[in-house]
């Protein structure tokens, strides 16, 4: 069977005709397989959803009880038959609960990786390369300029800055699912034991991470009611990046704006966003991770989705690997 008969793009998302299911559909469908809980991949309103238990939990937290008609939890590594097609979820290392989906039918094997990264992350299961014929890769950071440094170095710079500017608050912009918890966990692993103040948008998800055994230490709401302005002196405050442009940020003393994102690799991006301390911490694979992973899967063909497809396709051509862009629409980089 040709690979494109097993999976191909439709306006709703990536579709599998023999299995009659979609992967990460952007519109409501009858059966959806979901790689991870970021809102551009996990949407509400599908009739049935198959995802890891943690992804289902995250969707429930974000959308409420009725986010899907029926749900089924996929255990990592467990083969599930859907109309004669075998699907298996494998860890993707992106955020808590994130998975790649391996689709096998009549001897042909495709892995849809969703979003993934290779750097070690204490808040989720590490990525496992899966041998396949076709590997579908993201390309959020699919340019040779994106090289993420070790996240511990970035956190060390944040802590150095808090020592250099003890009279100011450090506001760390980090997306609510995954990045925020990873930053907090990195701070704890670096020995930071003061309370971390969080924006209200992070509370439910951070509680959930803690309930899954990921220690984040003492988190306090960054509200003026609980704390006077001077109490935030020297504090680290984590919140969604959008909040820092908002009036919300006025409660902090002379804040230093930090942003944890792979985009912070580019100085102009940091400058434009008014970021004083860019922290290059990403939940996506950088250029070297993308190319290493492509080699490790042993895939003879690469399909490239959302991001900078052309550079990665070019690299594959130079390496003699067949590659093409998939042109899926509707995926932004919420996770970074």
């Amino acid at each position, binding site marked *: 069977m040709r690979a494109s008969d097993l999976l191909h793009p439709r306006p709703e998302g990536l579709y599998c005709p023999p299995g009659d299911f979609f992967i990460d559909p952007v519109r409501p469908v009858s059966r959806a397989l979901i790689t991870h809980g970021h809102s551009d991949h996990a949407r509400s309103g599908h009739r049935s959803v198959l995802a890891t238990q943690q992804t289902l939990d995250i969707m429930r937290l974000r959308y409420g009880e009725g986010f899907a008609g029926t749900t089924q939890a996929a255990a990592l590594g467990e083969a599930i038959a859907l109309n004669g097609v075998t699907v298996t979820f494998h860890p993707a290392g992106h955020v808590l609960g994130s998975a790649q989906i391996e689709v096998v039918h009549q001897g042909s094997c495709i892995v849809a990786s969703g979003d993934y990264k290779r750097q070690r992350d204490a808040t989720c299961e590490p990525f496992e390369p899966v041998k396949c014929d076709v590997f579908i890769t993201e390309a959020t950071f699919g*340019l*040779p*300029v*994106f*090289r993420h*440094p070790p996240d511990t170095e970035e956190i060390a*710079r944040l802590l150095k*800055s808090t020592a*250099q*500017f003890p009279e*100011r608050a450090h506001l760390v912009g980090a997306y609510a699912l995954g990045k925020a918890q990873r930053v907090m966990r990195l701070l704890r692993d670096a020995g930071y034991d003061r309370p971390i103040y969080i924006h209200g948008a992070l509370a439910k998800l951070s509680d959930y991470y803690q309930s899954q055994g990921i220690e984040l230490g003492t988190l306090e709401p960054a509200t003026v009611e609980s704390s006077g302005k001077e109490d935030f002196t020297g504090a680290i405050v984590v919140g969604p990046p959008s909040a*820092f*442009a*908002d*009036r*919300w*940020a*006025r409660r902090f003393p*002379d*804040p*230093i*704006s930090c942003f944890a994102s792979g985009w912070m*690799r*580019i*100085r*102009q991006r*940091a*400058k*434009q*966003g*008014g*970021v*004083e*301390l*860019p922290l290059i911490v990403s939940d996506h694979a950088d250029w070297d991770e993308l190319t290493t992973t492509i080699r490790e899967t042993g895939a003879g063909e690469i399909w490239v989705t959302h991001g*900078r497809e*052309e*550079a990665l396709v*070019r*690299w594959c051509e*130079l390496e003699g690997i067949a590659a093409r862009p998939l042109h899926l629409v509707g995926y932004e980089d919420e996770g970074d």
Partner: protein
Amino acid sequence: MNRFAELLDRLVLTPSRNGKLTLLSDYFRSVEDPDRGLALAAITGDLTIAAVKPAMLRALVMERMDPVLFGYSYDYVGDLAETVSLVWPQSPADIANHVPTLAEVVAKLQAASRSDGPKVLARLLDSASISARFAVIKLVTGGLRIGVSARLAKQALADLGKVDIAEIEELWHGLTPPYAELFAWLEGKAEKPKKTALALFRPVMLSNPIGDGDLEKLDPADYAAEWKWDGIRVQAVSEGGVRRLYSRTGDDVSGAFPDLAEAMDFSATLDGELLVGDPRQATGTFSDLQQRLNRKSVTPKIQQQYPAFMRCYDVLQIGDEDLRTRAFRERRGHLEAFVQTLDPSRFDLSPLVEFTDWQALEELRRKPLHPVIEGVMLKRWDSPYLTGRPKGPWFKWKRDPHTIDAVLMYAQRGHGKRSSFYSDYTFGVWSGPEGSEELVPVGKAYFGFTDEELRQIDKYVRDNTIERFGPVRSVRADRRQGLVLEVAFEGLNRSTRHKSGVAMRFPRISRLRWDKPAAEADRIETLQALLDS
């Protein structure tokens, strides 16, 4: 090298002066000699390294990677130095156990000949981290562009040693990188370095603005009055054949004014205003003077068209005699006699202004006899020449600023304390024929308002946003609706860079005109008239 790279990375994104000072003095405190001194020299522009052309840099990287992938990368990043620092291929074998120090990097670059320069650079890039590669490229392509002036770096040194910046400025030109003796003194480990070099800078005396009620407390008989000329305050020092022209912050600007330096065939230190024109005939405007500023080289044509001269205010030293402790009255006598002996096309005397009482001086200040005058100076007859800005002996009494009513067009978020406020405003005035007027931006201002007014404007911006571009918001501004700002400014220059053709000097918001309809704001012709006057 990595610490220097980290410092550059932080400085370029830190907008506040205090933040920069903290970063710099922390660096100087924690890094050892000679690295810290070389970093200082790189920042002040005193480090000599043979420059590498961008084309060469590009050629080096093209040898190492696919040109198509480089093209995608460069298109995305937009800055060559940064792109190369990021895409430079590095094999694990290249990563040395030993990270080269800044001193080692500088030594290798300085020792490189023209022919082996590219190879030396490539080897350095091989062994460096991404940030360090960026710093190396910045060193060799010239100009760090990190928003730190030499003056700010000297202030950080002053903070480090808890000394007055004037002491550092005075020593500076006698010192050379890596400044080990300077750091030793600042850290209390050695005596202050001796001033042995010739023609050193002497820290200048500055004035305070006349405030409300100040004049009533002063006796006109105690003060001399003098025009305040709108050029660049300079100090001309000529000693033992060494001639230097310094800015008021102690930067050596001799290279930009070879015509004036050539005429400094004396042995003295003079304080005055740098202007262009021929002092015997006509004094050029500040716009004319700008033709001579910020140029890498001064062509003979420009020198002829805009000859530089110095209008002398004061004399600090003649021959071996330091006059700074003498009273202004005595120094003035020396100055008048001394200027007589100089080339009259290059030096003249700033005339004193006769007056009997403050009222009479006020009249003169309001109607100065020359457009290049921006007010009057008051100097106590008995004042010695002091360093810095002592309160009392010297006052500046400036001409009232110009004002214009402009319409708010764009607002940008501020930094630090203001990072959640839209606090930087671009404003425009009307242009075009009646019935189809358009706003044309004429300037940008980010101060002059109170905290309460800032809150009000911020709310207005948020409520009337029509478009967003990153941190910038476009605000509704048309004939029927818009916020009128009264903008005060010191002067106007012609500008080819701005669509409106004008650039304001020192613009600030002087009043919010909530009451004024946008359509009644000023027109561009009002500014153009000011330019031509």
